[in-house]
């Protein structure tokens, strides 16, 4: 059995297998140049081995010379591939050095084919058979050619190039790459070159076994690349697992991920996202198609939000409805981020959309409940006022009745005074209107309806409420003073609810002063601006002060000092004021009594 054949076959097949493997890798991912170059290196090594075998089995000097000539081809391929590999895969090494090396080696290849028999020998005089691994192999005897130097120098330069690259890589911290590839190339090339020189000079009586040394390089590179492949596989696996987790999360949460390539106007959406928007799993989605899925009234706001995101740094946040969804349009919250190109044009927007229909539903129910509670508190409060309200209506009714009955009597006289009768009728009409006003105000407060946002004048609200409780205040002997700022900016809110708050505070103030002396029941209502964007309303009394436990105690649900009170009034008032964007608080006055105060933001058009 020929050990040489076996060994060289093993080397060749190993190299070719690795070459094929990595060629396939490059085929699937054209950017993996490192793999292609490695492939070439491995093929070159195999061809090197083939030529070496040819040399060893050569029977004539001419044949040997030819084999030695042809061995330069894989050698040239090898060198260029190695240089390329270092540049492309390690991304290190000076380019000019690389080009010099390649240039020189190409020159030496050309020379190799010009000179006879080849670059290495000026003349091969004879062959000698030497024992090698149990066989006799041919070794050349001849005169070395000085042109061989060019080849050697190119190899030396390559080594320099690789050393330089290795140092760069080492400094970057990629130690393993540096050793495997950089050191490997340097070492094995060095050894190989030495062997060639010694053999050529007849000092060493062995055939050229460059293929073994280059196999070393190939193995190092293969290990490095396969490590990459392994890492890539692991990464793929991790990625797949990560994707699976994400899919699970998005399915569970009903989120959809999307990426919008803006220049090409193409939107990629994850499958859960497609379901969310009611888009089929395969159709192409662009911005127009996207806006087609929206609930029509929301289309403009969404466009505006996108434009705003582009203009102001890229963060996109929007809540809108989509037509898909059963039975009613679905609410979706979207958050996105935009990437911009170097000159500021938007390139890509990435984001996530979440189904918030349940939340919106809960919000609207909560809103309704709050409205109902406010209504309940209002009605209860008005119930407490009922006697005073009846009195308030009785005044105009009395005036109307007495006027009318007086008129009847005047008419029954012989010569009725028509002027007086006209006056009577005019008074009746005006008193009727007055009664109508009271009823209108009352009805407004008793109304249970949706909260309405209107432009309101705070002073007007204070005066309306005071008119409503006038009889009650008189009945309880309370003296009211108002200090209303003349030019208050308008506020935005629900008239009924704000009147409710004032009414509650005023009635509480009356109660607080119930045990004061009759001339000592002073109630003051103040309105004034509080900074540029808010105004402040205060209700002050000189009564018994806040209960023990501090001001906040009074706002607790179900806390009341009235024997038959519900205790809801103040907590509802606070909810109302908070919903209007303001704050409601209380504090005892320095001397005596309490001041309840609330702020409300003004309405900026």
């Amino acid at each position: 059995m020929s050990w040489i054949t076996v060994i060289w076959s093993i080397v060749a097949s190993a190299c070719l297998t690795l070459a094929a493997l990595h060629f396939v890798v490059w085929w699937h991912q054209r950017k993996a140049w490192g793999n292609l170059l490695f492939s070439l290196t491995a093929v070159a090594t195999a061809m090197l081995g083939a030529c070496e075998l040819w040399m060893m089995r050569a029977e004539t000097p001419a044949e040997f010379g030819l084999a030695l000539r042809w061995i330069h081809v894989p050698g040239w391929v090898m060198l260029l591939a190695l240089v390329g590999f270092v540049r492309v895969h390690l991304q290190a090494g000076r380019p000019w050095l690389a080009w010099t090396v390649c240039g020189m080696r190409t020159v030496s290849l050309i020379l190799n084919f010009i000179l006879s028999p080849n670059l290495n020998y000026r003349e091969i005089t004879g062959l000698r058979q030497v024992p090698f691994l149990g066989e006799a192999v041919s070794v050349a005897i001849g005169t070395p050619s000085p042109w061989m130097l060019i080849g050697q120098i190119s190899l030396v330069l390559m080594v320099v190039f690789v050393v330089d690259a290795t140092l760069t890589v080492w400094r970057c911290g990629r130690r393993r790459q540096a050793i495997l590839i950089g050191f490997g190339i340097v070492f094995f090339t060095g050894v190989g070159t030495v062997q060639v020189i010694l053999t050529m000079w007849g000092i060493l009586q062995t055939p050229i076994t460059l293929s073994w040394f280059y196999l070393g390089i190939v193995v190092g590179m293969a290990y490095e690349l396969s490590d990459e492949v392994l890492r890539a596989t692991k990464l793929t696996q991790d990625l797949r697992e990560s994707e699976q987790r994400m899919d699970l999360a998005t399915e569970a949460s009903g989120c959809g991920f999307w990426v919008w390539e803006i220049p090409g106007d193409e939107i990629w959406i994850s499958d859960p996202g497609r379901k969310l928007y009611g888009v089929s799993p395969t159709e192409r989605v662009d911005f127009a198609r996207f806006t087609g899925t929206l609930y029509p009234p929301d289309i403009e706001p969404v466009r505006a939000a996108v434009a705003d995101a582009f203009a102001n740094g890229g963060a996109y946040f929007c809540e809108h409805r989509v037509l898909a969804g059963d039975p009613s349009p679905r609410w979706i919250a979207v958050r996105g981020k935009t990437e911009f190109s170097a000159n500021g044009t938007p390139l890509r927007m990435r984001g996530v959309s979440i189904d918030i229909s349940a939340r919106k539903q809960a919000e609207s129910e909560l809103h309704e409940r709050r409205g109902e509670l406010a209504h309940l508190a209002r009605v209860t409060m008005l119930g407490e006022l009922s006697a005073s309200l009846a009195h308030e209506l009785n005044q105009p009714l009395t005036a109307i009745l007495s006027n009318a009955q007086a008129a009847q009597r005047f008419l029954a006289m012989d010569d009725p005074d028509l002027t007086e009768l006209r006056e009577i009728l005019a008074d009746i009409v005006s008193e009727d209107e007055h009664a109508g006003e009271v009823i209108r105000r009352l009805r407004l407060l008793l109304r249970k309806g949706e909260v309405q946002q209107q432009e309101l004048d705070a002073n007007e609200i204070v005066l309306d409420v005071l008119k409503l409780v006038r009889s009650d205040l008189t009945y309880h002997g309370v003296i009211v003073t108002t200090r209303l700022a003349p030019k208050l900016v308008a506020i935005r809110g629900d008239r009924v609810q704000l009147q409710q708050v004032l009414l509650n505070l005023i009635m509480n103030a009356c109660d607080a002063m119930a045990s004061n002396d009759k001339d000592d029941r002073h109630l003051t209502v103040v309105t004034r601006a509080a900074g540029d964007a808010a105004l402040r309303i205060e209700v002050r009394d000189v009564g018994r002060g806040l209960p023990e436990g501090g001001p906040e105690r009074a706002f607790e649900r179900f806390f009341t000092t009235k024997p038959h009170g519900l205790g809801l009034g103040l907590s509802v008032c606070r909810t109302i004021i908070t919903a209007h964007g303001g704050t409601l608080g209380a504090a005892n006055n320095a001397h005596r009594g309490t001041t309840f105060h609330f702020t409300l933001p003004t309405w900026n058009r």
Partner: protein
Amino acid sequence: MNSPTCHPHSPTVFLVDDEEAVRKAVSRLLRSAGIAVAAFASAAEFLTTFDPAIPGCLVLDVAMPGLNGLELQQALAERGGALPIIFLSGHADVPISVDAMKAGAMDFLTKPARDEVLLAAVRTAFEKNRVARIARAETHEILTRLATLTPREREVMEHVVTGRLNKQIAGDLGTAEQTIKIHRARVMEKMKVLSVAELVRLADQARLAPTPAHRTKVS
């Protein structure tokens, strides 16, 4: 507060209500029934400007700023007023109406009050006031007459009205029967009565006449 028996003023309703529309309308109603009215916007205004010599009655609102109706009623009682009070209130409050009646109000009407109801109450009040004024005038006259008696005559009168005979009175006082007869004649003359029965009646009325010092406060 003493005044002559008759006064040229016709009975007037003194109307006190803080609400202008009500004052106007009720005044019109009273005028249309031929009744004189004087309207006041507050209890304080009434107290400072009304003329106690004018006969009539008071129509009073309860809930007013400052002094309310019940407080005015009390203030008038302290001054020894004779004006009957009719409350005309917008609050149909049982405790208040009970307090008002206990304190001597003549009537308590709720707004809105029909004309017949109000006018009937006013007429009743005028009548009550007229009778009271007459009684007061009478009592005043009696007291004036009593003041003209000498102490001795006074003593004799006291005994006469208990039904004692001249002889018995002479015995009680330690004088002669004839002296008693003379005193008795003078008493009858000064008191302007013709019979003992009348004298007794006058004496009773004089004793029951309320004087400011004896009046007890009714709360």
